[in-house]
């Protein structure tokens, strides 16, 4: 099967039987249901050892998006992750059983977890001991010890130009509005409005930013770096 993506200036190498990453220290391959835009960078296939999506595509990384420092994709068979262009996935951990959508120009820092599934108390039965035991029994019976969804997944949406600090956790069902900032270590369980800055435990809005990331500002930024 021919590659399903457009290889341009990228460190991903087509080699007939899956795809490799140049200078990869881990002896793995990229799954075949990953679609990459131009100029995508992936530092290692180590981040894909738990990628079990059976969707077409299971992961889309837009133009010039980078997955650095062992960014890991823990994706179940029904999971689908899409990421826009010019987004920095720096050592993050995406746990997706159904749907995680990340916009363009987002900056996501190390240790941050984005998940659409946890044992929520508001999903009837999901947090009962018996339901939890069933999840672990299913994992033990799976040859790769794949964990099934911990409860009914609720999709997560991260808007364009969002900045998430290190070790933050973005919980199921959350939408992060365009341009917002999540401070390090925040555990986000509720939607964040566009251009809000949140911090603390539990997180609170500490500031509102000016929405100055206009189309003109974007164009000027591209021009500045010769990408017009």
């Amino acid at each position, binding site marked *: 099967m021919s590659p399903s993506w457009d290889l341009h200036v990228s460190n991903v190498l087509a080699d007939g039987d899956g795809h490799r990453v140049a200078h990869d220290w881990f002896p793995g391959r990229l799954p075949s249901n990953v679609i990459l835009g131009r100029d995508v960078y992936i530092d290692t296939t180590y981040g894909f*050892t738990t990628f079990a999506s059976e969707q077409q595509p299971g992961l889309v990384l837009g133009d010039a998006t980078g997955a650095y420092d062992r960014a890991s994709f823990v994706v179940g068979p029904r999971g689908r992750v899409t990421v826009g262009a010019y987004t920095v996935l720096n050592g993050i951990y995406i746990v997706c059983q159904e749907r995680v959508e990340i916009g363009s120009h987002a900056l996501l820092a190390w240790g941050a977890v984005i998940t659409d599934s946890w044992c929520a108390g508001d999903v009837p039965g999901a947090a009962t001991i018996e339901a939890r035991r069933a999840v672990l029994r299913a994992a033990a019976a799976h040859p790769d010890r794949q964990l099934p969804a911990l409860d009914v997944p609720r999709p997560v949406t991260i808007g364009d130009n969002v900045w998430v600090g290190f070790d933050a*956790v973005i919980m199921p069902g959350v939408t992060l509005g365009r341009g917002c900032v999540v401070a390090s270590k925040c555990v986000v369980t509720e939607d964040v409005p566009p251009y809000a800055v949140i911090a603390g435990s539990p997180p609170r809005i500490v500031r509102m930013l000016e929405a100055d990331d206009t189309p003109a500002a974007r164009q000027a930024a591209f021009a500045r770096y010769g990408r017009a």
Partner: protein
Amino acid sequence: MSAPDPSPMTIPSQPSQARVHPIVAGATIPGDWYPGRVPENVVAGSGSVVDSTFCFKHYYATGAAAGLRTGVDVTLWRTSIAPDRDAVIEIGDGSYIANASLVASERITIGARCLIAGGVTIADADFHPLEPAARLADSIALSPAGDRTSRPPMDIRPVVIEDDVWIGWNATILKGVRVGAGAIVEPGSVVTRDVAAGSRVSGNPARPVSP
């Protein structure tokens, strides 16, 4: 970028790649990316697996007693098993530990059917004394020129995680804590005190929340 193809496609067969391997004391793992071995004094029940011997990079238990003892069907994935010289880490049947760090100076006990998620740290000590003069001495004992066997005393209190406990991403469980059976520790929590059985805690410091 190319648009996702909406038409049905067959998924090409992936090269088969066992992602976990039985834990066998003293053994290497075939195809392991890390050139290590499972330590000799590990005692693992049947069906207990690990993804790589990298999990044992900070395994310092050198005594005759087991530094890690697991029940059956335990899954250790990208998890740092770090018992100090005479420390013991015990993990009960069917527990699943993914991308966590278990750092023990004396003892960490994890019950059966626990789920411990990514970024979690469980530690039974602070690993350094609190008092400035003692810390100064510790820095010398730990130095390349020092003697690690004669470090100043520090506060060590074993951790117990009882059966059926789930611990969410990036949570921290500190020394002396007992997490009661069936409790849920929400992601990002910093647990400094005991957690009642069947309860759900959240925040820093972790406090009970309604389920």
